[in-house]
């Protein structure tokens, strides 16, 4: 099982947002996708989950073609995208937000069990189950978004800048949580981040995007050691 992206080209109207991007993520590994604002990271995820259509190229998850399918159907194949900006439904309660992730599975008992697992991972959510999602703090909302994704029992998790706008301590928590998702649940994760250091520290492999193209690729360790990467993205 792995994610194989080859020669992906995505256009925003007349502008090529993603250009000939290819990379592979092995099963149960975390791939960090780093790059500056506007590099195409979000577009990449939106294309993989089916929110945006690609022009040419392919992306396969275990032989399932991600690109030709609407997002709601990709979810049924185990691919879940957590959008940027703490994507929770503000008007719904924490519990309802979680349920949202599991509705398509139609199995009530399984849903309850999964919810217990999620709440074990994010106990703070358990304390706020009945509250409206917009009363949560930024970090809690991000946890809720990830929690909702987990309710869908994903195999491939696409995370868009989960650390954005969060306090350092919370960011650390989030990254540790993502790490444990890989370690304990064997999830495959594509982690898009502006916080390159944090992402590369928990990732197995890394991809750096610039203007829609892959500029650096390799193991996370090698990227952490690469002077060019350091200069451009890690700040030292």
């Amino acid at each position, binding site marked *: 099982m792995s994610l194989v992206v080859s020669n992906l080209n995505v256009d925003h109207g007349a502008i090529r947002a993603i250009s000939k991007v290819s990379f592979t993520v092995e099963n149960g590994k975390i791939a960090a996708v780093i790059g500056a604002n506007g590099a195409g990271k979000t577009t990449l995820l939106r294309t993989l989950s089916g929110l945006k259509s690609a022009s040419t190229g392919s992306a396969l998850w275990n032989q399932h073609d991600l690109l030709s399918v609407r997002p709601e159907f990709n979810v049924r194949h185990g691919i879940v995208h957590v959008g940027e900006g703490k*994507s929770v439904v503000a008007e719904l309660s924490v519990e309802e937000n979680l349920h949202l992730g599991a509705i398509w599975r139609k199995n009530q008992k399984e849903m309850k069990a999964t919810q217990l697992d999620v709440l074990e991972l994010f106990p703070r959510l358990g304390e706020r189950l009945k509250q409206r999602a917009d009363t949560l703090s930024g970090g809690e909302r991000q946890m809720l978004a990830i929690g909702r994704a987990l309710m869908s029992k994903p195999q491939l998790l696409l995370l868009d800048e989960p650390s954005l706008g969060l306090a350092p301590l919370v960011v650390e928590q989030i990254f540790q949580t993502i790490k444990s998702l890989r370690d304990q649940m064997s999830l495959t994760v594509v982690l898009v981040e502006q916080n390159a250091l944090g992402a590369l520290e928990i990732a197995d492999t890394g991809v750096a995007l610039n203007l829609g193209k892959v500029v650096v690729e390799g193991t996370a360790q090698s990227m952490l050691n690469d002077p060019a990467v350091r200069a451009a993205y890690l700040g030292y």
Partner: protein
Amino acid sequence: MYKLLSSLLIGISLGAIYSLMSISLVLVWRSTRVVNFAQAGQAIVSTYIAFEVVNRTGSFWLAFFVAIIAGAILGAIVDRYFMRPLFKRVNSGPIVAIAPVVATLGLLGILRAIVGFVWGVELKPIAPPVSLDGFSLGSEVLPFAPYNALVIVIVAIVLIILSLLFQKTNLGLSLRASAYSPEIARLSGIRVNEIRTLGWAIAGAAGAIAGILATPTSYLSPNSLDVLLVFGFAAAVIGGLESMVGAVVGALVLGLGVTFVSNYVSTSLIFPTAFVFLIIILLVRPSGIIAGKGSRRA
């Protein structure tokens, strides 16, 4: 005293009918960001179908049931085969802002014309299942009849069913999520397009019920539900287009307001009253009586 009591009761009964129309408009608005003016057209078709059933079988309740189904099916068809292709086709240029409004108006006209053609434009009656004669209170006869009470009961039941559906079921959760955040709903595995069509079906059914309940006290004609549309819309706006509760409250306020003006001032001021109500609310409290999120900008 009797005038006050009867105005109150009639106002509530009227408001109850308006609320079904306003709820159906709010439902569609929330899920598709479109004010479906064609709702009146869908309702009139359903009501004429009900008329046929009553004519052939003499049963109001069978007709009622058939109207609900017809309304639901029609609502689903309009969303799936009219609105969705429309949005796909018209997605650029300045026309986007007015295209949905204009398109649903066009559809309204077409539905009305079809109805007029198939059934003719003469006024037709639908006999009510219970009496239209007012209750007697002592020596007085109230203008409030068993039928009006029945209307209130039916609408109350419908509202309860709808709120249970929305608040307590997975389907309702999907509907709400799809309306609030369609993208997040998609990413959660919810088939947003199909859910939206379902929302239109429910709205269509509610509109059909409004149509069939409104007819026994007057008559049926291709234009007879225009009033309902205007009042339903005014009620929805007064209540704040974003909320179901608001739609109901707005409808009751409007129903009572219109009845009181009609009884105490003059019957021909009904429409101007609704208009004035609408303007006042829009000027004074633009987010409606029950303020919801989201702005007045479509």
